[in-house]
C-alpha cells in the first residue's frame, strides 16, 4: 500500500519532466528547423549535424553527462532541471524533424501567394504557414509526446523522484516490490494508449479530408 501511494504521488513529477522537456524541445526546435532550411550551406550542414548528434546519443548518456559532467564546468544542476534539459535537447532534434516535415507539407503556392500579396516574412510565417503546418504535424507531435512520456522514466537514474524512481526504491526494500512496476506500467499504458488512439484518429480524419 505504501508503495502504491509513493507511485501515485510521483505521477506529477513524470508529467513535469515530460512537459518541461517537450516545451524546451519545442522552443529549441524552431531555430533548428530554420537553420536546417536555410540556403546558407555551412549553417544548414551544422544544423543537420547538431540534430544528428542530439538524436544519436542515448538520452541516458545526455542526462549523466549533464548531471555528473557539467559540475566540472561549475554548472551545478538539481536532478529535475538536468533531466528537463537533457530530454529537452533530445526532443529539440526530433521535434525539428517533425517541424521540417510539417513545413514541407505546406503547398509551395501558399508561400508564393503570400509573396504576391506583399506579406512580410514574419506575417507569412505566423499567419499563413504555421497554422497549416501545425495541423499536419499534430499526429506526429502527439506520438512524440507519448514517446517522451515513456522516456521520462530515464530521469530516475539521476534521482528525479518520478514513478520509476518510486518503484525502484520500493522494490529494493520490499519482496513484493515487483508489483509496483506493474502499477507504473499500467499508469504509462493508461495514459499513452488513449493518446495514441487520438493521434491515429486525427491521422485518419486528415487522410480522409485529403482524399
Amino acid at each position: 500500500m505504501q508503495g502504491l501511494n509513493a507511485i501515485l504521488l510521483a505521477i506529477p513529477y513524470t508529467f513535469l519532466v515530460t512537459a518541461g522537456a517537450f516545451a524546451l524541445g519545442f522552443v529549441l526546435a524552431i531555430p533548428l528547423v530554420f537553420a536546417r532550411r536555410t540556403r546558407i550551406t555551412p549553417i544548414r550542414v551544422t544544423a543537420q549535424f547538431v540534430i544528428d548528434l542530439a538524436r544519436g546519443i542515448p538520452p541516458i548518456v545526455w542526462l549523466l553527462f549533464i548531471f555528473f559532467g557539467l559540475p566540472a564546468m561549475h554548472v551545478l544542476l538539481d536532478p529535475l532541471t538536468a533531466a528537463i534539459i537533457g530530454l529537452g535537447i533530445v526532443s529539440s532534434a526530433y521535434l525539428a524533424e517533425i517541424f521540417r516535415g510539417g513545413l514541407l507539407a505546406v503547398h509551395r503556392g501558399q508561400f508564393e501567394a503570400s509573396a504576391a500579396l506583399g506579406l512580410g516574412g514574419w506575417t507569412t510565417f505566423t499567419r499563413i504557414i504555421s497554422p497549416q503546418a501545425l495541423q499536419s504535424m499534430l499526429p506526429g507531435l502527439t506520438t512524440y509526446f507519448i514517446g517522451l512520456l515513456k522516456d521520462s522514466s530515464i530521469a530516475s537514474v539521476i534521482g528525479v523522484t518520478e514513478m520509476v524512481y518510486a518503484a525502484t526504491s520500493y522494490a529494493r526494500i520490499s519482496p513484493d516490490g515487483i508489483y509496483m512496476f506493474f502499477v507504473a506500467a499500467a499508469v504509462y499504458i493508461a495514459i499513452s494508449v488513449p493518446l495514441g488512439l487520438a493521434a491515429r484518429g486525427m491521422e485518419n480524419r486528415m487522410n480522409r479530408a485529403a482524399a
Partner: protein
Amino acid sequence: MTTTFQFWAENFPQMLAGLGVSVQLTLLSLLLGLPLGLLLALGVTAPPRPLRWLSIGLVETGRGAPALVILYVVYFGLPILHWTPEALVSAVIGLTFTTAAYTGEYIRGGLKAVSPGSIEAAHALAMPTTDVLRFIVIPQGMRVALPSLMGFAVQIFQATSLTYSITVSELTAQAYGISSMTFRSLEIFGLAGLMYAAITVPSSWLTSRVERRLSLRH
C-alpha cells in the same frame, strides 16, 4: 592530471569492450525479437479472436510501457519465479520483448500495404494460405517495413544504454564506472556519447538513403 585525449586513450579499451556488449545486446534482441515481431504482426490480423486479442495485448504492453520498466520487471520479476539469471540474460529478455512489440507494429503496417490484388491473384492460382504468406505477403510487406525496421534497430541500440541500470556492463556502465573512479565525468560521458554517435549517425544516414531508394521505386 593527464589531458583529455590521454585520458580517453587510457580508457578506450575498456570503453570499447563496453561498446562490444552494447552491440551484442542489440544483435541478440533483433535476432530474437524480429521473428517474434513477425508472429505478433500475423497474430494481430489473425481471424481467431483469442489469438488476436493476446497479440494486441502484447503489442500494446510492449509499446505502452517504457523499455526501462520492462527491464526492471524482468530483472526483479524472474527471481520470484525462482530463476535468477545473469543481468545480461534479463537484459536480452526485456529488450527482445520491446523489439517484438515495436517491430510487430511496423511489420503489420508493411503487410497491410501489400496490394490485395496480388493476394487475390495468388488465391486464384490455388496457392495454399501458408504459401501466399510465405511467397507473396511477407516478402513484399517486409520490403515496405524495411526503413522503419532499420530506424528501430538504431533505437534499440540506443536503448541498450538502459541496461546499465540493471548492472549490465555495457558502454554506459563502463563510463559510469570510470567516472566514479576518476571523477572526470564530463570527459568520459562525452566520450561515451561520441562512441554511440559514431554508430547511430551513419546508421541513420543509411536508413534515410534506403528509404529514399525504396520510395523512388514505387
